[in-house]
């Protein structure tokens, strides 16, 4: 059973990845003839301001979204772990966004940002928000962050919640007898004990957000201008419609290296911190 799995995996995953790397050294447009061009694609990429802009947007988005999602999810998880009323119902509500299609939810948010929020802002007399933030090249990325946080908090909350449930309650009782306040209890008990979950959440969220695609397609389509063009979107557009097949596979190879470096770095740093705690 492992042999067919290996063959299929190689054929549909490794093989295209390898051919992708091979094409990145050519000038193929996706059709017609091609020649090897050496490192030309890579050299051009480093001079390409469109590619650079997409990296800046993607990183800005991924970092802010990862941090926001983790803070908010941890807060919600701690709330859900407390002795509260309507526990099951609340847990179910907070997980709901994760079961929904990002694209469709994105269209709904698109409408909220474009029509609903400006209406409200006008009624309340907040001039700064009377125009859609998605139409503003400096603010559109915030809309993407809001959608991403709304959609993915549910999953991270559940991961944190399962971490919190592994903590023995007598620890808190002992700590409060010793006079430790809420904040001390959090920094000295809760956080150290769930730090493996913190590592997983940070790495998973960052990796997923670096690949952002559906969110941008639904909200801004990369606009206004190219203000919110993510790396995935650029590779998709340039590769399929722009006749830059080989060039964008070179971009994808660089993207791969970047993601690999970041993941390894994150895991190393966060695990080291886990040990120190």
């Amino acid at each position: 059973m492992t042999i067919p799995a290996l063959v299929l995996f190689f054929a549909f995953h490794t093989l295209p990845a390898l051919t992708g790397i091979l094409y990145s050294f050519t000038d193929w447009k996706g059709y017609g003839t091609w020649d090897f061009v050496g490192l030309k694609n890579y050299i051009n990429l480093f001079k390409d301001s469109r590619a650079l802009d997409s990296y800046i947007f993607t990183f800005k988005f991924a970092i802010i979204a990862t941090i926001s999602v983790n803070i908010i999810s941890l807060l919600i998880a701690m709330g859900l772990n407390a002795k509260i009323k309507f526990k099951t119902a609340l847990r179910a509500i907070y997980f709901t966004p994760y079961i929904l299609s990002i694209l469709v939810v994105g269209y709904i948010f698109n409408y909220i940002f474009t029509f609903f929020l400006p209406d409200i802002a006008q009624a309340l007399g907040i001039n700064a928000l009377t125009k859609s933030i998605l139409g503003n090249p400096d603010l559109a990325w915030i809309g993407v962050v809001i959608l991403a946080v709304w959609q993915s908090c549910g999953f991270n909350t559940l991961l944190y919640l399962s971490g919190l449930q592994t903590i023995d309650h007598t620890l808190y009782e002992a700590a409060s007898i010793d006079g430790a306040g809420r904040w001390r209890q959090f920094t000295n008990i809760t956080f150290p004990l769930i730090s493996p979950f913190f590592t997983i959440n940070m790495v998973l969220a960052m990796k997923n957000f670096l690949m952002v695609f559906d969110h941008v397609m639904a909200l801004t389509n990369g606009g206004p201008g190219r203000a919110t063009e993510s790396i995935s979107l650029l590779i998709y557009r340039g590769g399929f419609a722009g006749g830059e097949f080989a060039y964008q596979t070179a971009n994808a190879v660089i993207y791969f290296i970047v993601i690999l470096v970041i993941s390894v770095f994150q895991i190393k740093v966060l695990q080291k911190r886990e040990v120190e705690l």
Partner: protein
Amino acid sequence: MISQEEANLETNLKSKESSRFFKFFKDSDVNWGATILLLIGSLAILFPLYLAINVALKSPQQLAQSIFAFPKKIHWENFTKAIELTHYFRSFKNSSLVTIPTVIITLLTNSMVAYAIARNLNKKFFKFLYYYFIAALFIPFPIIMLPIVKEMSFLGLDNRLGLTILYIVYGLSMNIFIYIGYIKSLPNSLEEAAIIDGASTWQIFWKIIFPLLKPINATIAILTSLWAWNDFMLPLIMLNERKLMTLPLVQYVFQSQFSTNYNLAFASYILALAPMILVYIFAQKWIISGVMKGSVKG
């Protein structure tokens, strides 16, 4: 040391006593602050969904008057029009014909591969396989995206079957990771006893191991179906024929036709979200515990 234990015991006893005492007041140890904050927070989740349903039930005139207010006269015909326009049942069928086989075959095959690897990790070949599959987790999809489209259309697999194959194959890395973590925690003794009784590996897997994998199978089934049902990128690059398109892809394709009529568009969005929401309403507890179990073991 002993005195500390005694002290702990004493506080435990005390808290038990006090909880008995407070039983009379039943809810007095409820954290109302957290409850209220969470209730307010949940509005942030529910409000966009309320708004979406609200818009879907209105006429353009009603929408122009107020986005927020619930419509006095409900326009169900938005839904019937959306069903006709987007060929809803066709795309629903397409999504189902991709998701259901994907989930079933994923459960049957991925668990078996994971079992073979987990029980043979001392052998070089299986150790290599393990790292080979796990390493693929770090390869971003865009590097495969362009070549796989060429490969699939060359093989004549730019259809539902091809999509299903890709979901099963691409899920392998993550699923193996989760399965192996769980299989390692299962004791060897049952299998050893079965081997002595003369059972083949095939029998051992189906009769003993697979039933034991039930909780983690639930996790894998949930995560896989969410992914295959909601995914947009793979159908976008793979499917060119309109009659094969899945639900999310159809929403994308009809964007330009919707642009003038938001009510119709939202009716279509609600229809696209509805199957998952319905499943979730009935299987909510099971889904949540499935996802949480996976995260502890994996």
